[in-house]
């Protein structure tokens, strides 16, 4: 988070010095985007607040934490494959889950399949690429997500 503030401030300063008008436009765009996503964002926070009231932290850690092992990863991969959620919602959600003790690996399983496997976008994709290519592409995507998940687990010391 410290880096985020540093990067944003430096970019803002450079942008202001280079072109004041463009910077104003950038601020307007970001405010616009923020307001547009706000309702969905609040809804996500509300749902998580309610769900996490009924599901104690220990249960989350047990099934999605480091020690959950394969179970948590399979859960993450399945959730990400079936559901559809914009990154603007998914990553903050990942941040909350991380605080609750979910492992990086299982969050990666969720967010990466979410990005790569288009279960919900399948009907759209097949209109452009045809069924065969769409299936192939999504299956390959799933395996890429599995590899990414394992590598994340390795680097964060969550496997072995």
């Amino acid at each position, binding site marked *: 988070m410290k880096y985020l503030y540093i990067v944003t401030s430096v*970019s*803002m300063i450079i942008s202001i010095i280079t072109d004041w008008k463009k910077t104003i436009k950038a601020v307007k765009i970001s405010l616009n*985007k923020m307001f547009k996503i706000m309702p969905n964002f609040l809804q996500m*926070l509300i749902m*998580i607040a*309610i769900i996490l009231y009924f599901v104690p932290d220990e249960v989350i850690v047990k099934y999605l934490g480091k020690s959950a092992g394969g179970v948590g990863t399979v859960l993450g991969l399945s959730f990400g494959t079936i559901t559809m959620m914009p990154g603007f919602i998914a990553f903050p959600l990942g941040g909350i889950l991380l605080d609750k003790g979910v492992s990086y690996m299982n969050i990666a399983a969720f967010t990466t399949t979410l*990005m790569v496997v288009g279960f919900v976008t399948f009907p759209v994709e097949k209109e452009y690429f045809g069924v065969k290519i769409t299936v192939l592409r999504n299956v390959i995507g799933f395996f890429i997500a599995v590899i990414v998940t394992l590598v994340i687990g390795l680097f964060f010391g969550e496997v072995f």
Partner: protein
Amino acid sequence: MKNKKTIIIIIAFFVFIFFSLVINYNPGLEIGENFLDFAISMLRVLPAAFLLIGLFEVWVDRETIEKHFGDDSGLKGYFWSILLASTTVGGTYVAFPVAYSLYKKGAKYSTIFTYVGAAALVRIPMTLFEASFLGIKFTIIRLGTSLPLIIITSIFLEKLLKYKEISFRKENK
């Protein structure tokens, strides 16, 4: 319509929390506390992340990148398709029609698949969000692993399609 439902949920939630406060209803208070916790931690990150995205949209010149996409010779072709994909605004939905038009313009299958795959994985606004909430280390590892895999599998997919003589849909889109 969908937005209306969201607004109703939000209002209902705040009414529920308000009455929980009035009658001291414990579950309601705890849920409200959860919500406040999350909202505060989000507020610390969101404005900065969205500012970066705004700056990105204003300063990145997509036309230059699109112009370069034409010369898809060798490694450079993959480089430009990833760069083009990273500047995609919106979801993967946007990438499919673009991919199809690239196909009609005669781009190689492997560069097209690299583009679509990368559009799902490295869109910069989304990646900024990821790094803000999950950390830079997470993002770097993910990009470092997935990008080479996208290129390799795209080349493989191209070979497979040529071998099996499968092609994109013929109809005009």
